[in-house]
Each structure stands twice: as C-alpha cells, then as structure tokens.
C-alpha cells in the first residue's frame, strides 16, 4: 500500500533568510507555503531585514529558541552559520539549507544553485550570443558576498572560456536605482562600445535600463539581469532587457519544505529502520534547483501566479 500523509497542524516549520524583504524570498516563501499547505503543517517566515552577520545569526538563533519542528535556512555566511545550524540539529531541529549553503555544517541537504554557478551561466549565455567575441561590463554591489560570488563566476568563466570577450569594467550599483544609473552612466560616457551588461542583482536592473535609455543606447547594449521580479519580466517582454537568470526560488522553497518535512517525520521514508540516526543515506545531500535563463520566449511562464 502507498504512503499516506497525515496532516500535522501542530507542526511549525520556519523559513529563515537574511536581508528579508526582497522579492526573491517572497517567491521562495510562496513555494514553501504551498508545500506546507499540501502537507497540512504550519509555515512561518522569519529573518532580519539588515545585512549584518550578527543580526542575521541572532535572529536565526532566536527562531531556533522557539523550537520549531524544522527549518529551511539560507546562509548569509557559510562559516558563521556552522555553529548555529549544528546546535539546532543537536537539539533535534532538522535543518535544510537553501539558496546559500553552509557546507561544513551538519545540515542534511542543500537546495539551490551556487551563486558562482549562476554567474557562470550568465557568462555562457552572453559568450554564446556574442560568438566568443565582444565587450561586456557588469554591475555588482560592493560588500554583498552572494553578489560578489556571481561576479566571480561570471568573470572567471569569461576569462577561461571566452578569452576574446573583454571585461570592460565592474561598476558598483550603490544603494538604489539612482546610484546604479548614475554610476553606469559614468561608464557609458567614457566607453559606450559595449555589447552586454550583466546586472548581477535585481536592484541594479532598473538603474541599468534607465541609464541606457538616457544615453540612447537601449537595444544597442544588451542587458542580462538577475532574478524574475515582475518589472524585470515586463522589461524582457518590452525588449529593454534581453534575458534574466532565475535560480528557481519557488522550487527552492517548495522542495525545502518537502525535505525538511521528511526529516521531521522520518518514518515517512522506509529505507532503513531509524535511518536518520544511523546515517543511512535517504535524502540527497544537495539538490540543484538549476539556473535558468529567462528570455522573451519563456518569460510569461515566470510571472508569479496571482
């Protein structure tokens, strides 16, 4: 007979992020909630809006102190999250990490794509489009390590695989779209002979578009953005952005919930008696949510269902 899932309304699962409040997490949260509803458990979202390890870890530990049934955690810093995650697991709270991993911790599973890989994907996309020859620039946000990793993946891949593509400049996107636009404009006024711009964070896409349109270069310089925010998708459809990268936030959230549910309700998996305690491999250690390139052809599908 097949496996029957029971509803556990008393079980509470947390999804915890850093820099909460950004739209990417909203999509993860949708997936997480949907899975929780399907499984009949309660889902909650926690985290801090600040970008600081101390606040992030403190709010994570405070959630752990609430003793939830299980947690899906995205890690602002791999090393800094090792102790809190291990402590929680030792206290009997199963944890999966998603989007950003902490590989040295005792977390059972990581679901997501590394930011480095996302950068590589962007480089491959642009490299192929340019036929291996051309000039590119990109926008980053200094000091935010997840974005820094995307840039690293991007530049390394370009240098390795497409030696004839010149990396013109890495520009700081600043705090908001105005700074992003101003800084990119400064670059464009020195050097507008650029084929592609990779805006490595969602908040820089808008500034990039505006800077290009103000310089009259919309369409001449192509844009590859990041994340599938509604406005970015709109821009793809209107043509001012050519492509964007999706790390499948919905899938990350959805499968995080499923995985952590399985960890909290171990007898659902009948691979071996007491498999978790004995360390019998029953769940993949990593799940690649993939990194998709979204273009005008497939943009429609990425709009969040209302």
């Amino acid at each position, binding site marked *: 007979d097949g496996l029957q899932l029971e509803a556990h309304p008393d079980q509470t699962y947390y999804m915890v992020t850093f820099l*909460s*409040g*950004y*739209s990417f*997490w*909203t999509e993860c949260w949708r997936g997480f909630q949907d899975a929780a509803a399907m499984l009949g458990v309660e889902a909650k979202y926690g985290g801090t*809006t600040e970008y600081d390890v101390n606040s992030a870890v403190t709010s994570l530990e405070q959630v752990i102190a609430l003793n939830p049934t299980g947690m899906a955690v995205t890690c602002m810093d791999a090393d800094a999250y090792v102790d809190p995650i291990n402590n929680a697991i030792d206290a009997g709270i199963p944890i999966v990490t998603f989007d950003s991993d902490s590989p040295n911790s005792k977390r059972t599973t990581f679901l997501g794509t590394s930011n480095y890989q996302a950068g590589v994907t962007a480089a491959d996309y642009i490299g192929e489009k340019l036929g291996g020859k051309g000039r590119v620039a990109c926008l*980053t946000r*200094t000091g935010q390590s997840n974005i820094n990793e995307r840039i690293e993946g991007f530049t390394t891949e370009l240098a390795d695989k497409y030696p004839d593509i010149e990396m013109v*400049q*890495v*520009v*700081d996107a*600043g*705090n*908001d*779209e*105005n*700074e992003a*636009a*101003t*800084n990119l*404009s*400064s*670059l*464009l*006024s*020195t*050097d507008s002979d650029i084929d592609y711009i990779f805006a490595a964070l*969602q*908040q820089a896409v*808008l*500034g990039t578009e*505006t*800077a290009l*349109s*103000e*310089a009259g270069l919309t369409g001449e310089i192509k844009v590859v953005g990041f994340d599938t*925010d*509604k*406005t970015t998708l*709109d821009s793809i459809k209107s043509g001012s952005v050519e492509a964007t990268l999706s790390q499948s936030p919905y899938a990350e959230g959805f499968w995080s919930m499923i995985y952590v549910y399985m960890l909290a309700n171990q007898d659902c998996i009948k691979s071996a008696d007491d498999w978790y305690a004995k360390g019998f491999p029953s769940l993949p250690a990593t799940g690649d949510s993939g990194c998709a390139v979204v273009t005008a052809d497939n943009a429609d599908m990425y709009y969040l269902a209302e």
Partner: protein
Amino acid sequence: MKNVATTKEQGSKNSVWKNIRSMKEFSVLVILLVLIVFISVLSPAFLTVTNLRTTAIGFSCNAIIAIAMTLALVSGGFDLSVGSVLGLSAVCVVVLTNNGWSIWMACIVGILVGIFCGSINGLLIGYLNLNAFITTLGMQQMARGIVYVLTNGGSIGLQDAPGVKAFRVIGSGSVGKFPLLFLVCLVLVVIGDILVRRSGIARNVFFVGSNEKTAMLSGINTRLVKTMVYVLTGALSGLAGVLTASRFGTATSSTGSGVEMTVISAAVIGGVSLTGGKGTVAGAVLGVVLMSVISNILVILNVSVHWQNFITGAILILAIIFDALSNRKKN
C-alpha cells in the same frame, strides 16, 4: 573706524576677490574645481555633454533635498528620513496610478505623503521637543517599512495610463541639451538659495538654530519654525520621490535608501554647521555636486569597486582638512 574706511577705498577688484574668499562655500568650490581640472586632464570623457548630463541628472534629486536639509541643519536638527520618504512618495505615485488614479492626482498625493511624514517629524520635534536624530530615524524606518509592505520587497512598474507619457517627460525629457530634471533642480536651488539667504522667514530658522532661547524671547515662534523646517524637508523629499518615479517609471523597495547620509555629509562639506545657525543652500548643493563628481571620477578612472569606499572616505576627510586649514589662514 578709520581702518574700515581705508579698506573700502581699495580697488573694488581686490574686494570682490576678498568677498569670494570669505564665502563659506569657497573651499568646497576650490576642491570641486581642482577635481574637475584633474579629471579633465586625465580623461577626455569627463567634459563631454553626455557625461555632464548624466551626472547632473544623478545629483538633481539629492540637490533638491539638500535645499531643505540645509534649513534642517541650520535649525540645529537634521532629517534622517528623507531617503525613505522619497521612496514612499515614489511608491505611492506608482501604486495609485496603477490603481486607476489620475497620474497628476497621484503626484500631488506623493508630495502630500512627504508633507505628512514631515509634519509628524516636525510636530514631534517642534512641539514635543523630541530628539531630531531618533525621531527622524524612527520615521525613516516607518516609511521604509511601508515601502516594503507596498512593494512586497520588490518593485512596481508604472502601468500605462492617460498622462503617464507626459508625466515621464519630466524625469527623462530635455530642453535643448539640458535635462528637464536638472532644470527643475536648478530653478529650485536658485530660489531656495535666495530665500534662505535673504527671506525673513528663513532668517528665523537661523535665529532658532543659533540660540533657541533667545529666539523664543524675541517673540519668534520657535516651535512653529522647527515644525515647518521638517514639513519642508518632507515636501521636497516627496517632490524628489515624484521626480524619481517620473524618471524611472518604477518604484522599488530600495528607492532612496542612503540619500540622507549623502545629503547630510554633502551639506556639512559645503559649510553647513551641524550644530545649527550657519549654512547656505549654495554650499550644500556644491557639496552634493562634489560628492557626485567624486563617484563619477572613480568610475571614469575605472577604480576597482573594492577601493571606491576607501577613496571616497579619504577624499571626504581631505576635503574638511583643507576647509579647516583654509579657514584657519583667514582668521
């Protein structure tokens, strides 16, 4: 008295030069000019129409806010909420228009939202005598909070509707080679500078900032003056928000963040006193221009993003060291 007479008799050329030298804005002007000469020599890209245009567009909103921030600083306070209020106003314009409001009504609401936030700041600081730092920090968080709630942490694009095209011209149009946004800013700055220098009402702000007790005894309604200062910062932040929405056609959850620090430090570099009583709009705006020329230079020279903060910080400190030394010589 005889000495004074003699100085006056000296050639007027000399005295014009002296006048300029004694201006509070003198040292920031010198630094700005030195930087401009420096970068023009290093790179032909600086003195091009496109570069000047985009730099001007970039600092316009900050300059508009700097007008009001000057008064807030002169009154002895400051306003940390300008950036969030700018963001909130932009978001309101977009959300209301998308919900079927007329774009122009939405703009008015955007400015009113700014005035509303400013009034709360003003009433709390002026009438309840609360600390300006904490009050406006609280307002910063509250306004940013509402932005998060309204945008859901993402961004909202302005949908097409009657008037939206016309509206977007304000932020992206040009008159000849001059961006409209910059012209709006220029007009406001000139008016603001004259009013702050010369108008009776603005003078009251100086009195309040210089010695609040004396101002009160002189029959100045110090509470009202303080309140109005924050209403003005709110109103101009609201306006800046409307202009931002017009320029980008989108409002995001981070629109305007960090503006307060840029504007306050620009104003202080431009000679506005943090302890109140001293400052000019021209100085503050020159400070804003200086800061944006610095970031422009960093990009033009392709300075690694990792070094940019260091260099900006170093220039900030060098600027005030220069200011201090040049003032010391004068005395």
